[in-house]
């Protein structure tokens, strides 16, 4: 039986830790953390992080759900995997951080976060074409900030775009797509459905 997501919690109420254990990829490893700091110390943009992975794990144990799911640490991960390979306890730190990010999105903690906007644009491309069309994803991402901001950002990178077009490295015209888009979409819908089914406990909460 899955642990429900505790709404707000007393310090060191393990409900949240259990929830992460069961619902976040690699979360079942966080009990192994001995708080050595090798992960946070290895992070290329650790200085941009409010808490860093080590303290994030500490706060998960401490049941600090909101602080964790609102932490900018989730959005500053460059996926360099240094923390993961250096962890003396073999904890998949990167996947825990990214897993938490995914949860933060699905639980509505991150609607305004840029990464989450980008992720949505990206997923739109994947579900429509089965592939990523860099041009469309970027455009959609930019315009997710609204028309004006979108144009501004677009112009900001105009030179880069032109370079790519010039070198034939930006695909123009109809996006590349998988032939069987229907089948792919069906697969993704089914997968999403299964995921939701497995996390009923979460929805109940």
């Amino acid at each position, binding site marked *: 039986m899955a642990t429900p997501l505790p709404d707000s919690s007393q*310090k*060191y109420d393990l409900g949240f830790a259990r929830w992460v254990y069961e619902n976040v990829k690699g979360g079942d490893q966080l009990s192994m953390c*001995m708080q050595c700091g090798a992960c946070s110390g290895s992070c290329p943009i650790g200085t941009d992080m409010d808490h860093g992975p080590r303290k994030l794990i*500490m706060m998960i*144990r401490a049941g600090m759900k909101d602080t964790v799911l609102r932490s900018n640490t989730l959005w500053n991960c460059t996926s360099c995997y240094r923390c993961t390979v250096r962890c003396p306890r073999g904890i998949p730190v990167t996947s825990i951080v990214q897993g938490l990010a995914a949860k933060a999105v699905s639980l509505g903690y991150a609607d305004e976060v840029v990464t989450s906007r980008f992720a949505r644009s990206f997923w739109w491309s994947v579900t429509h074409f089965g592939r990523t069309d860099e041009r469309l994803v970027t455009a959609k991402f930019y315009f997710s900030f609204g028309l004006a901001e979108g144009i501004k950002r677009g112009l900001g990178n105009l030179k880069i775009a032109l370079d790519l077009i010039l070198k034939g490295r930006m695909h123009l015209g109809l996006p590349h797509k998988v032939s069987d888009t229907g089948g792919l979409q069906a697969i993704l819908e089914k997968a999403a459905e299964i995921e939701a089914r497995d996390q009923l406990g979460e929805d109940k909460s």
Partner: protein
Amino acid sequence: MSDYITRTGVYLCQGCGIGDAVSVDALEQIASTELKVPICRRHDFLCSNEGRALIDADLVGGDVNQPIVAACSPRAMTDRFTFDGATAVRANLREQVAWSQPAGEEDTQMLADDNLRMAIAQATETLPASAEPEGEYSRTLLVLGAGTTGLTAALEAARTGYEVLLVEQQDHVGGWANKWSKTMPHLPPYRDPQANSTDELIAATEAEPAITILTGALVTKTEGGPGKFTVTIELGDESRTEHVGAIVVATGWRPYDAGKLSHLGYGQSTDVVTGVELEEMLGEGPLQRKSDDKPAKTVVFVQCAGSLDPDHLPYCSSVCCGVSIKQALQIIRADPGANVYILFQELRTPGTAEEFYRQAQEAGIVFIKGKVRSVSADLGLVYDDMLLGEEVSLQNPDLVVLATGMVPNSTNPHIDPAETGADQLVSDVNPNAPLPLAIRVIDNNDDKSKSEPGENTEAVNGGAAAEPVLPGGALLNLQYVQGPHIPILTDGFSDSHYLCFPYETRRTGIYTCGPVRRPMNMAEAAEDAAGAALKAIQAIEGAARGAAMHPRVGDLSFPKFGLDICTKCRRCTIECPFGAIEEDERQFPILIESRCRRCGTCMGACPVRTISFDNYSPHMVSEMIAAIEVPDEFSEKPRILIFACENDAYPALDMAGLNRYQYSAFVRIIPVRCLGSINLLWISTALEKGFDGIMLMGCKSGDDYQCHYIKGSGLAKERLSKVGETLKSLMLEEERVTLEEVSIADSGRIPEVINGFVETIEAIGFNPFKGF
């Protein structure tokens, strides 16, 4: 021995640069012409088979029974210069002459000449050491305490072929371990709590025919020495005497008095328990709390409860982290739904116990680095979370477990404090021991003095407070001048002072092991018990041969007392670091030979020089000093006498030579067993003889002393402080006699130490007594 005639023979080596550095002809002159040594031979390579054959021939022929090898240091080529039935006296012409002095110079030659003269004098005054052990020697071990450590020690000794008398104060054996539901893992894969094997250990011990177990028994008196201990044991109202050869003390530990931890909630709620109390609550089923038998769903372990705390126990009890992990694992395995927290300051699971820590984390036990501030009666727990950097309150867990530390049973808390000789408190009982020391209760009938320690006791800092006594009586009640206790050292444990020699003891033939000597877990205690058993066995065998224990292992010489001129000053009895000297009814010193470690501290202490060994004596060294030629002041050649500890300073001098470091040729070096054996007679002899300066080179003294005989270098320092006065009265400068701490690693410092002193002396000027 009296009719023994010493027949000396000198054997000069010309190798290793000796022949180039000095005139061996001249040396031969000194031996045969000047000092009339009947036999004197030389060889280019004395340690070769041919060289050795020279010596053997004379020994076999009987012309020589005391060879004098004038070659390398006594520390070198020992295998080549060891002979059956004769011990060579060595004149060090290599390390301390040829290798540390310029070749072919007059001063170098004079140094070599004197080294040879001293060796000849030493040989003339040397009798072969021989022990004459008398009477019955017991081969039985007494093991005091029948917990894991004592049972193991008894079993190990029995399995090595020795009879064992196992004495336990309680009415049953097994000690604390009887209570343990499970034990920490010490076998691979080191992950899970292990079944408690104490029952098997007890069964094996009881099945061992060589072991006699006495429960409900108390040792009330211990006399004698290794091979000849006489122990009085009280069994209820019956009292019996036993003869044993050696003693293993395995009295273990007791938990720190949680009554003093009320700030952690102890005594305020029955649901605040100590780790020891928890053991009895742990079973197969889920854990229930004491107050209402409800299941304990949330359990908090508080590590270092009263440990690492100057107000309680300053030290770390080593085992608590592992024990709490074991208990936490048992709780969570019995009830996977339980929330178990361990609040620690430093998590200490050394070695392979790290596996156990990981196992606990895998099981979901939550480790929090935090220092607990308080636990309230309703179990509200407040602590400083060192990693969150904030104060956190854990609302009302169901059970709080205090991991209290180990207090050593280096005294017996169940009996009255014994009269502790002031001498012992100073020397062999650390007044800072946080046992804690108690203030002696004036009225001895006051039953307070019988009550558990901790209640009427308080820590005494620096022992400065009035009449400190230990909480409880002496374990063996030793009938030694040095007092009834086995030495109680750092943190109140009866550990060895030495890192390299953990079984070194100040009470020969008595060895402590297990938690009474250092906080340790059951596996470590069992290992320790085996080691102590072997040392006890060695003491038994050594005593029967009349041979010394560590560090002069096998030495057959022992001090002899000329009682005819003894003034009963008691210095030898009091200053013996090992309590080897007793007093007879007339207060004359009597040596308990098998306790003696042959350091000569008594010899150094004796104001009338009536204590001497057959091969080491005040007279012998005086003769060596007398043999040295001291030139008059017009020669511009000062003479410095150096007494060097043979264990550390002398090797350092040798190594200086090995490195070819050069130093003044004006020094004459005499190796001594220990600075403690230096008799002030030698200093006055030397000064009268016209020596300009005297240096004692030996080990560090003080709290971190390096002396292999505990007090030797310290006593030397103390005795020297009194010499100052004497010097003044003789109108001599105090600086002429000094003590320099030189460690074995000081080869590099040797030149500056020696030359520096020579300069000082040259600055002061020559000894006015020269030539008188």
